[in-house]
């Protein structure tokens, strides 16, 4: 089975007010394609840093980070941007849709940074909107949608570039329990269809839906559990 991501002895240091903070102190893990990983931990455990590295928003201080076959730990800003545009799907806690764009246009955004958009791309965006159940709202603006609907748009957007993995940062943090359930169902369904999903969360009931839970503490992997059957 090929890997969506592989981390080897990844460390990340920050300099904050003259003091060096060791956010990650050597993290190694493999994420095979089709996996559903929940990265959990208290605040300060390094999970946000790990998310930023996996999302190619930042570079590790040392160690190697492979996405597919590419070592992204030494790429420059432009190359990282290209990887983000073509290989990573982001889902955020606060949805992060662009307010002046319609649902369909929001889904298209990652494609704009790769190539000129053609008819085929348009059709695909429409299919994705349909898949998340928003086919009737493609012309709406984010402000005209509920939180759950906005997160669905974000999920559709995260899939548009056919990524190595979908990276979700507290995707249900801003949602009520009913909507949380819906969104998690959608992620589970996507995983069953073969998508690799990495969720960063501190809520255990969200982690419970994943097939594998990686717990972090003080910048190190505390535990890495895998369950064969998800309830």
């Amino acid at each position: 089975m090929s890997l969506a991501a592989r981390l080897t002895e990844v460390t990340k240091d920050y300099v904050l007010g003259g003091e060096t903070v060791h956010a990650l102190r050597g993290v190694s893990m493999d994420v095979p394609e089709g996996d559903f990983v929940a990265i959990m931990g208290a605040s300060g455990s390094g999970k946000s840093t790990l998310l930023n590295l996996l999302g190619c928003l930042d570079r590790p201080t040392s160690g190697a980070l492979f996405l597919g076959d590419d070592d992204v730990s030494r790429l420059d800003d432009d190359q990282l941007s290209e990887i983000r545009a073509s290989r990573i799907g982001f889902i955020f806690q606060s949805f992060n849709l662009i307010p002046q764009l319609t649902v369909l246009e929001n889904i298209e955004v990652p494609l704009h940074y790769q190539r000129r958009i053609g008819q085929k791309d348009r059709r695909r965006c429409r299919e994705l909107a349909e898949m998340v159940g928003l086919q009737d709202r493609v012309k709406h603006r984010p402000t005209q949608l509920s939180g759950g609907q906005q997160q669905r748009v974000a999920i559709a957007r995260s899939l548009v570039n056919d990524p190595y993995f979908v990276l979700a940062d507290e995707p249900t943090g801003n949602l009520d329990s009913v909507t949380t359930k819906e969104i998690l169902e959608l992620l589970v369904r996507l995983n069953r269809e073969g998508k690799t999903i990495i969720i960063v969360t501190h809520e255990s009931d969200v982690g419970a839906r994943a097939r594998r839970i990686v717990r972090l503490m003080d910048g190190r992997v505390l535990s890495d559990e895998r369950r064969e059957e998800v309830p």
Partner: protein
Amino acid sequence: MSFFSLRTWQLGVKSLLLHPLRSLLTVLGIFIGVASVIWLLAIGEGISRKAREQIEGLGADNIIVRSNKPPSEVAEKSGRLLAYGITREDYQRLVNTIPTIRSALPIREIRRRFGFGPHLVDGRLVGCTPEYMDVTRLEVDRGRFLTDVEVSGKQNHCVLAAEVAERLFPLDDPLGKSIHVEEAYYVVVGVMKPKTATAAIGGSFAAQEFSNDVYVPIATLQARIGDLVVTRRSGSFEAEQVELSQITLRIDKVDNVRETARLVEETLRRVPTHRTNRDFAIVVPYELLEQARTTRLMFMVFMGVIAAISLVVGGIGIMNIMLATVTERTREIGIRRALGAKRRDIVRQFLIETIVLSAVGGVTGVLAGLACPAVIGWIWYLLDKYLPKVMAQLPDVIKSMEPAVVPESIPLAFGIAVSIGVVFGLYPAMRAASMDPIEALRHE
């Protein structure tokens, strides 16, 4: 995202329309800048064009030599009889010695009272030759102008300017009638069309009015009145002896005008009385024309600088708004960066917005600029109708000024507007692009 894709521009417009009032006010700054560039240049061009027309009216290939009354200290020395000015001898000498003079036109002017029956008009009696009509661009209304035969025969014939004819002959046809000037009678052979006065040009050429003129052959004037002019002033007599008031020299080629003017000056200076009295002046319309050109250029630069300042102010307005916009849209920048936008994509996005703003300001400003002549005409019309007193007080140059939009000013103003958009938009755009995507995403 490409600079040339329609979608990129659509997105820019969309983002600007999120804050329509703010965008409108920003555009206004550029609009005013562009419009004022075109307006100021058009008004400047209008004024200088007027001045140029007046100078050209004097003829670019002419040199005008005028008799000047000498300064008063010289006058006092010479006693009661003051003799000054260019003489017929000077005239002959100039014509005989300078080969580049194609023709020369002597004039003698005296202030006199003209009469016909009970009607009296004060005006200028001009002794001249037939060429006078061409040189001053007068046109015959009825009858004819003076002829060579009349000049050589010293005939008592005269031609009236329009206003003199109107006032002396309110009811009759003047042709064939005789008017009297002091004791002498002159038969009217022609009436001229009205001609507007030429304005004074700088300090070197007094304004000329043609409306109260009576033209007679110069030889007749010399024979009848002579060179001696006696005027009574506050109880005492003042006598002046002037042979010629003015000589208009026509030069064979415009290129020779300057050199000839220098020669004329030298020739006249050699005469001792002229040298000591400084009683003549040489006006070279060609030089005035050159002067007017430089003045125009300076004027244009001056106007341009004023207008450019207002454009820069507009640019600062753009920068101010874009900096605020960038801060406000930090989150959007973070999202776009996370979704794969490179730094240059962000720069491009914000730059396009400023270009749209400045281009809209530019286009509307150009339209407003083109409306300049119409608007000025309209203002004159309104002033004339509702505030005629104010209108009457305005100087002639301003009143008769017709703004002429300088064609170059349109691409110039538009180009400057868009470049200002780019220059002042670049810093906010770079600031947007240099944000750390992680920080930007966290921004509330």
